[in-house]
């Protein structure tokens, strides 16, 4: 079956729309989710394996994570976890059909952004 090339609505991020808090947080939710899946969850697993393998493995893990790259990965993982969890709550509220009007969506968006930065600082204070 041949299909006509019908016009598509432009993607939310790009030259067609002004950047919006809602669309930027939506794509950040995905990006942080991918980061947590590919880096964060394996990092947690690495910690468990190190603890299960003995003091030597634990020490070498700590020296890796104490380096500049390790520290950067820990900081990024903690921020992604904080953001994805709090923004995930926002999505779960939306899924019940509530808080969907623009004013509330923006207010909750800012709350999530500030909250995730605060939670990140608290967690990094405990971890680093």
């Amino acid at each position, binding site marked *: 079956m041949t299909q006509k090339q019908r016009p598509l609505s432009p993607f939310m991020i790009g030259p067609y729309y002004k950047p919006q808090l809602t669309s930027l947080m939506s794509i950040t939710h995905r990006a942080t989710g*991918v980061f947590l899946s590919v880096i964060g969850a394996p990092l947690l*697993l690495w910690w468990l394996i190190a603890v299960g393998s003995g003091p030597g493995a634990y020490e070498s893990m700590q020296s890796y994570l104490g380096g500049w790259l390790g520290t950067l990965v820990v900081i990024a993982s903690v921020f992604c976890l904080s953001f994805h969890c709090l923004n995930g709550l926002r999505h779960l509220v939306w899924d019940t059909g509530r808080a969907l009007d623009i004013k509330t969506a923006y207010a909750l968006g800012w709350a999530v952004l500030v909250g995730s930065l605060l939670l990140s600082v608290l967690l990094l204070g*405990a*971890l680093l």
Partner: protein
Amino acid sequence: MSMTNPLAKARGMGSAKEGVHHWYAQRASALLLIVLVSWLIYSMFRLSGADYEAARAFVSQPVNAAFASLLIVTLFYHAMLGLQVVIEDYVHHPVLEVVFYFLSRAGAFFGMALGIIYLLKLALGA
């Protein structure tokens, strides 16, 4: 001549009637992760500055090992479902899409297995 009703023909085979499962599973695992990640945050504070022995004692404790194993399973499950949507949305190459899909599933199941085995090893003191 086709005996199919024109409306049925236009509609094709209809939906697979199972699309809601993925959506539901993603949310159900998210709700579970609220509890489990809260435990993770609690344990990060508990283990702040802890040495190896303290960390080992903490995760070997049965209730903590139970929380940790549920966390690992739910986390990798939720990650697997999320990665699937991202792959479906952004990877338009037919072979690569299947390869990434397979790798995300295989990786998630391997992560679950590895996590549970190490937690059992710790909890049983082997």
